[in-house]
């Protein structure tokens, strides 16, 4: 049953993405930017999905420290890993857009810098997990680190904002304008990416649980 739900969400997300790709392909070019503006339909949803992953990871980590249920640890790893993949694509799409519009791949602007630090922090989480052998210790350390990393993100953001800023203001909350049917595609893409994230996290979660079971069986075999 759980499999069917997961695959159902996956198929729905794929269908929405396919439909959106077709629709976005047909949208006219923007006056100043040409066709490269269309990257926003993917860039922003990537960050939304990555952010969802980070929040899920924080909640799972805190709950793990309280309840000590290893399922929550598996959820934390799964959502961090999938979130990191989305953040990577978010950085890459942003970089491509920057190359076209600003003429440079990268600039040390507030959002870009804090996004990169965010990426490094979560990559550190995965590296830390690899360095700890003992499963219980690994889960605890990873959860603690996840909390530290999550607290750091807003502080990093504000500190770098005072430092310098040049990323375009958000289209939706700070001026800028989007025709209504573009907004519809944008929001559907956002929903589809988050759904895709949920599916990937669910698959990765199941793999992590299976891995834990294999490890415990192996230990049992050793003990016998």
């Amino acid at each position, binding site marked *: 049953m759980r499999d069917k739900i997961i695959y159902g969400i996956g198929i729905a997300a794929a269908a929405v993405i396919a439909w959106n790709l077709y629709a976005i392909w047909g949208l006219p070019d923007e006056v100043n930017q040409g066709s490269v503006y269309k990257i926003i339909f993917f860039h922003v949803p990537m960050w939304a999905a990555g952010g969802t992953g980070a929040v899920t990871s924080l909640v799972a980590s805190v709950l793990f420290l309280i309840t000590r249920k290893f399922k929550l640890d598996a959820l934390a790893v799964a959502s961090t890993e999938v979130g990191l993949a989305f953040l990577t694509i978010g950085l890459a799409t942003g970089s491509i857009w920057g190359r076209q519009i600003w003429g440079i791949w990268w600039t040390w602007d507030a959002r870009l810098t804090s996004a990169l630090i965010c990426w490094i*922090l979560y990559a550190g989480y995965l*590296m830390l997990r690899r*360095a700890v052998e003992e499963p219980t210790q690994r889960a605890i350390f990873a959860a603690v680190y996840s909390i530290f990393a999550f607290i*750091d993100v807003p502080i990093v953001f504000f500190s*770098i904002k005072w430092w310098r800023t040049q990323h375009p203001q958000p289209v939706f909350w700070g001026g800028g304008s989007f025709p209504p049917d573009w907004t519809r595609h944008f929001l559907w893409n956002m929903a589809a990416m988050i759904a895709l994230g949920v599916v990937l996290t669910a698959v990765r979660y199941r793999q992590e649980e299976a891995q834990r079971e294999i490890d415990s069986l192996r230990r049992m075999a050793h003990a016998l």
Partner: protein
Amino acid sequence: MQSMASSSVSVAAIPERRRPAAIEFVRQIFVVMVKDLRAEFRTKEAINASLAFALVILLLFSFAFEEETTRDISGGLLWIVFAFAGTLILNRSFAREQPNDCLDALIAAPVPAAALFLGKALANYFLVLAVELVSLPVFGIFHNVNWTRQFWQLMVVVALGTWALTVIGTIFSALTVNIRLREVMLPMLTYPILIPALLAAMMLTTDLVAGKPIGPDTVSWLKMLIGFDIIYTAVSVVLVEVILVG
């Protein structure tokens, strides 16, 4: 009647010997700090390595940058030296307890993990601070920088920035003590988290070394530094028990 009286006397005598919890906590922190400092001053392994390392980097900077450039980016250079040299001390903080299972004994001792953490953090704080206070004049001499013009404000920034460095460094020293590639993992995990604090300290230090006092446009960096210190001290004190005991 006689025995009741004598027993009530002995019961009354106990509270006299017991100190209030807060004072006891401070005393425990102090004991751990003194123990760490004493162990360090007997071997001098961490502080010597850290100091030598700081001087070598300062020397390398004089080849890497022109004197003019050095003055413009003094805050950045100094805090890179402090962060790198500090890591050498912080790496040893919990690793020192590993031989003879001292760490297990410390955890088993009737001292709360928070006191253990704060004691170790304070010991590290003074060691890192000592390295910094030697590095500063050396930096001034090698690079012809008159860095004492805003001396006391600079000391405040150094004190706050160093606390950020040590509080994060000590908690992650506890976290990385048992894991593979400890020496690599500690800076890998701490530097990204330290970025806001280091950025604030660098900005302020560059201004202060140039003789510009903290003004309305830079005071927000000072607030950020204080906020960072408070938030992470609180989070570390809450989470250290989980890290050490499980």
